[in-house]
């Protein structure tokens, strides 16, 4: 893993303001930002560990632990609330038996809140991995969640 991180740092380190680029590349490759990566990135970019940790922890998108095989993001923003999105939040938590920012014990699904997916003209919206779903009904959400648990 250290080699992979060092390779990413070497590849992107010369870009102006490279830290977010590097962190995105690490998360794309490993699925999260392991705590072991922080000193490596700090050393490679000539930053303090505190600076790198500060950035990783500031941004909601960066994960500190491995995600489930699927990431389900439920929009909590106003437009989705106006179309019963709040019910979907509760339904997803019930269906999966976990709260927001948790992963099911079989490692299948991570559940995250998201604040607007830009699909406000087809609220309520849900994003599963990189796939967006609009006008999600409770029945459709159950179907999508069930698919997540089946697919490996």
């Amino acid at each position, binding site marked *: 893993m250290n080699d992979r991180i060092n390779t990413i740092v070497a590849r992107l380190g010369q870009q*102006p*303001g*490279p*830290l*977010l*680029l590097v*962190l*995105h590349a690490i998360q794309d490759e490993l699925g999260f930002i392991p705590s072991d990566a922080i000193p490596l990135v700090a050393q490679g970019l000539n930053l303090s560990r505190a*600076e790198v940790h*500060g*950035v990783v922890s*500031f*941004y*909601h*998108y*960066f994960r500190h632990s491995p995600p489930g095989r699927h990431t389900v993001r439920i929009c*909590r*923003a*106003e*437009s*989705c*609330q*106006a*179309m019963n999105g709040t019910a979907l*939040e509760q339904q997803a938590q019930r269906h999966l038996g976990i709260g*927001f*920012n948790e992963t099911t014990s079989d490692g299948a699904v991570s559940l995250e*809140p*998201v*604040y*607007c*997916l*830009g*699909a*406000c*003209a*087809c*609220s309520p*919206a849900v*994003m599963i991995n*990189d*796939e*967006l*779903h*609009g*006008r999600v009904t409770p029945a459709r959400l159950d179907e999508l969640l069930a698919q997540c648990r089946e697919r490996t």
Partner: protein
Amino acid sequence: MSTVVYVPRDAAALALGAEQVAQAIAAQAQKSGLDVTIRRNGSRGLYWLEPLVEVETPQGRVAYGPVSVKDVAGLFTAGFLSGKAHALCLGATAQHPYLIRQNRLTFARVGVIDPVSISDYLAHGGFQGLQRALGMEPAQIVQCVTDSGLRGRGGAAFPTGIKWRTVLDTAATQKYITCNADEGDSGTYADRMLMEGDPYLLIEGMTIAALAVGATQGYIYLRAEYPHAHKILNEAIALAYQQHYLGAQLLGSAHRFDLEVRLGAGAYICGEETSMLESLEGRRGEVRVRPPLPAVKGLFGKPTVVNNVISLATVPTILQHGAAHYRDYGIGRSRGTLPIQLAGNLKRPGLVELAFGVSLRELLYDYGGGSASGRPLRAVQIGGPLGAYLPAQQFDTLIDYEALSAVGALLGHGGIVAFDDTVDMAHMARYAMEFCAVESCGKCTPCRIGSTRGVEVIDRLLRGVDGEAQLRQLESLCDTMAEGSLCGLGGMTPFPVRSAVKYFREDFLKPRPGIQGSQHARA
């Protein structure tokens, strides 16, 4: 001859099954031995009709929607490839009542062309603004934008030309053009639609900005929640480099402009311009104290233009047709057109680009068709999570920066979220405080602590603990946040909260049997 069928690749159309529909059309055509070319366009913005499929006929494009996979076989049987009648047929797309009364200047090509085809872009008047700008002095370009009356469409409504003038007048070895594509406001999606439907327009606008102020490097700061836009922008930028619309010797001139997309990482605050610059530099997205303005000391300490996607995408049209053409639309000090985004509980949500001066009522009922639920509309929130809530008695307010300001609201990025009469405005006010607490960068106390205290005060209200005293406390808290915060996040969270209290006071004081405080979604 091959029949051309358009199926959008816009993220929201895909969210409603456009990809599956495109595949079903291709499969059915093959099965029937018909020669069909499927082209992928952006969205026309008629989202209640997405996936909206269009067929090119000798009489023009004919629309069908909303099309699902199970409709495809029937469409073929009905002869949709020659524009024949079908239950889903909407007639000529350009004549659709939702579109025909719009003033689509900035969105003229969105949904019409293949977004990544440079030849499509050129055939529809693309790069003419840039051609014109290449023959002008920087100060002339800035003057043209100033004369158009264009004000920042991100929400701050600052005159774009004046911002550019400052960057032009500040001497430096390096200047930057940055595009704020961190479209985080709920109810807004115009930036996304434009980037996914007409990315060269943004590239052209940024290039013109670069010529105007003497910059050679640009960054598009795109939110991570927009993977589809990311892909399309990168495709378009690569093709633009190949054909010398980016890079050295721009269109054979001596100018150079390089452009790169940088991804955000899920922080709403990075839509604030100085926080965005911090993030682009690879740091925590904490707000900078101004002055110095970014136009003087911005990205990496250099003079920097920070403009929203729509502001930049409006520039090519202004250069192409002249400042007066754009300025002639609109009313008062709100010149030109605004891409308004209708969202939430509406029958016909979608993108409506109109000259300033249209009333909320027209938008909500004539365009939006009233509520999707069939119940009366009770409130709208304009301008995202930091925008005010307005009740039905304010629906005659006009879309105009000053008119909205006069009723204590703001236009923001032009998103309108409608709520029916089931909405609980105390919950919406609580959500506004909760959102601020989740998204606060933490730098200043009124925002960081004030928002958390705000949630607590509203929770006490919801539990029915001494309502009037809690409302006084809430007002005092709002005052501290509005006056004491460093930036708009803490400074403007009082807009939704105070407007909810002002117009919907009964929701804060009504008895609520069995209520429990709900938990925060993010610690």
